[in-house]
């Protein structure tokens, strides 16, 4: 069930009511049951996979903790990683690797047929797999204790607000909260509602609106040229941010209703003045996961410059591959990795202000926009077509006007989108230095607080679009 569905509108209040009505010792059970129910609403068969991953990681962590032998610990860790990643690999990557292996073998005149498994990718598998891996590795490293209660551990893995699209939570943040005693906190719950409303604004009023235009182009790329392609790239850049950060906000807001704080996943990433800063602000839970479990174990930046760059590239390529089994994602990741390598070599990372910072911010945005073309395109050829035809035609006012015309965007829709983007821009800009919701909530003028709430709700209702579109990151 989607967050923006009527089913969730019924599910959430029921879970909320039951959660706060029953004694504390049963609340973990409520989270577990409701989370599995939430996951089963997508496809009942998916439950077996998450259960398998949960059992493997739970058992492995306990065995690792019980063993003193380092070699045995390593063996158990490796087995758990292989088992969990094996599930992910089977459902997500086996066709991709099989096709590419066959292609390479064909170059050596070894002719084989690729294995093609017709498996539906389970929703959220990349997210919960990484969450379980993070837990097992943390236990191995001694950063956290193995959880002995299977129910608590299962609730940690399957916690429904963050189950299907993150944030990828760390054991030391979420597990204690699942176990902790919670009293209902009015301010926290109100904050959560406001955050959810803002998340819905980003998803329904911006992401879903822009999706109509960007999908139209990217699903039939060869029918478009010129400014329409630039528009599609720009719209997708905003769409994926609003879609994903909107989901994260709804997830965080929803968790707050249960007294649980999830980590912040986005911090105004398009106001970054470098790619390095961008990745400290975009999908923070994933970038920190890769930093802690891939980049640092490879040596991080405590190695030679060459090796450091190699580590960066490996991390970003793997990150790209995490997003999808297609060379377009690998290229997207590689572009970001390469950009960071160049930045490290030539750029001064000292903080900048004023026009210099604004210029850098624009450059980073444009770079990200072009990189997203690979992310969104169905294949490399289509991505290259977009780049080669973005500036085709005579650039004059008709060129711009036709761009809007070919994506079927009329003046009314343009004004709708522009207004919403201005609201987003202002909110994200102000968020660079302050927590807007906290500021408003702590405002002593009740009329202002009331106006904020009414205004936010009215924005969502007045500007939302009609769409059954899934959240983009669900496909990962």
């Amino acid at each position, binding site marked *: 069930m989607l967050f923006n569905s009527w089913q969730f509108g019924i599910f959430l209040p029921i879970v909320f009511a039951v959660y706060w009505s029953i004694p504390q010792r049963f609340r973990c059970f409520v989270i577990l049951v409701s989370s599995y129910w939430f996951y089963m609403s997508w496809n009942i068969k998916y439950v077996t996979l998450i259960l398998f991953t949960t059992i493997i990681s739970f058992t492995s962590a306990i065995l690792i903790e019980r063993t003193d032998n380092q070699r045995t610990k390593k063996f158990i860790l490796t087995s758990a990683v292989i088992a969990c990643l094996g599930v992910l690999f089977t459902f997500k990557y086996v066709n991709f690797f099989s096709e590419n292996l066959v292609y390479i073998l064909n170059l050596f005149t070894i002719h084989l047929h690729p294995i093609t498994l017709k498996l539906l990718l389970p929703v959220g598998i990349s997210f919960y797999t990484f969450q379980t891996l993070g837990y097992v590795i943390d236990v191995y490293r001694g950063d956290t204790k193995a959880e002995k209660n299977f129910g608590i551990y299962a609730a940690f893995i399957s916690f429904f607000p963050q189950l299907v699209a993150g944030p990828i939570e760390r054991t030391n943040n979420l597990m204690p909260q699942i176990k902790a005693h919670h009293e209902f906190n009015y301010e926290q719950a*109100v904050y959560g509602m406001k955050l959810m409303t803002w998340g819905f604004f980003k998803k329904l009023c911006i992401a879903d609106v822009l999706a109509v235009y960007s999908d139209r182009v990217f699903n039939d790329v060869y029918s478009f040229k010129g400014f329409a392609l630039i528009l599609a790239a720009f719209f997708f850049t905003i769409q994926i941010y609003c879609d994903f950060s909107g989901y994260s906000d709804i997830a965080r807001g929803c968790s707050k209703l249960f007294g649980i704080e999830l980590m912040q996943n986005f911090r105004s990433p398009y106001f970054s003045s470098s790619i390095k800063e961008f990745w400290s602000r975009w999908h923070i839970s994933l970038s920190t996961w890769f930093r802690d479990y891939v980049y640092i174990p490879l040596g991080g930046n405590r190695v030679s410059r060459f090796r450091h760059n190699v580590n960066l590239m490996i991390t970003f390529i793997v990150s790209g591959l995490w997003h999808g089994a297609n060379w377009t994602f690998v290229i997207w990741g590689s572009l970001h990795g390469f950009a960071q390598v160049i930045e490290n070599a030539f750029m001064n990372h000292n903080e900048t202000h004023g026009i210099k910072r604004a210029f850098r911010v624009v450059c980073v945005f444009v770079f990200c926009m072009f990189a997203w073309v690979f992310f969104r395109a169905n294949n490399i050829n289509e991505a290259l077509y977009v780049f080669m035809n973005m500036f085709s035609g005579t650039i004059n006012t008709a060129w711009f006007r036709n761009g809007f*015309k070919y994506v*079927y965007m009329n003046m009314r829709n343009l004004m709708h989108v522009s207004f919403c983007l201005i609201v987003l821009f202002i909110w994200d800009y102000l968020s660079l230095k302050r927590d807007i919701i906290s500021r408003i909530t702590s405002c002593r003028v009740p009329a202002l607080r009331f106006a904020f709430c*009414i205004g936010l709700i009215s924005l969502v*209702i*007045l500007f939302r679009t*009609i769409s059954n579109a899934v959240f983009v990151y669900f496909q990962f």
Partner: protein
Amino acid sequence: MKKFLLKVSFFAVYAFLLQVVFPIMIDPYNVFHTEHIRANGVDCNKNYVKMKYILNNPERFDSFVFGSSRVGVIHTEKIPGERAYNMAYTGGLPSEHLANIKTFLKNNIHPVKIYIGVDSVSYMVDPEMHISSQMHCPYEYLADDPYYFFTLYCNPLIAFESLKTILTKKSEVDTDTFYQYGWWYKYNQESKIDWESENVKPTILGILNDKVFRNALNDIKETVRLCRENSIELIIFTNPMHNITYMASVKDCRYFEFLEELSSITEFYNFSSLNDITLSNDCYIETSHYKAEVGDMILNVICSDEIYPELYAQGFGVKVTKDNAEEFISMLKYQLE
């Protein structure tokens, strides 16, 4: 907790009133008031409203005239021997007409005759654009998905815009005509534009796209097949486009190619060429819609086999078949020289 629940309830009620109650009450597109449409300042979703009306009154009519708003001038009471209803709606497209006919048949409504007016709009406008449009969303899409129906029409922004019209009573709708005949252009309609102005432009809707072009022809082909299978007499005619719109359609919109393809699918009555009707501004409301009087002439040709000799020689009222299509289209091309 009580304070929180009270607060949430208050905002939930506000959201419900704004999101649901207000739009349903105002209902600019009359989808919640299909049996008694009101003048709300916007054109109602005629596809939905008319379909609902016909499905609720299945015995009332035995023949239907489909098309875009250009066909809205056809006065169906002039069709002899039939209880005809004008099923035209704004931006009507072949795929939508096909879906409507299928819905009729599924609901045991078996028309004796169906007329469909086509022109460049039929193959230039992508039906996909209509799905998210409150004015154009097809009946079938809404009927099959009640959730989408409510989320599409529970739109307070549009309702606010209609409020002004409703409160100042600036708009009128002739409900008798709407429910009895379905057309909405009266006789002696005055032109809406200044023909002497330099700003008179052709009315070209949509964008030329090969996929949309092919799909439209396939939809017409499927309509022909469906009608044949169900013993429905199908008459297709081309709308007499104003000469400015016609020239633009020919020059930039593959119109002749459309006619060639259409002739290979079915015979049709042609009214679109450079003739005394299409060259006369007095016959048009603007460069898109011809007047009701011209609609009567179309009916005379189609239903009463009347020939206007001078106009016939210019291509108006010619029955185009597979046998004479090539010659006829050559004649149309010759007219341009």
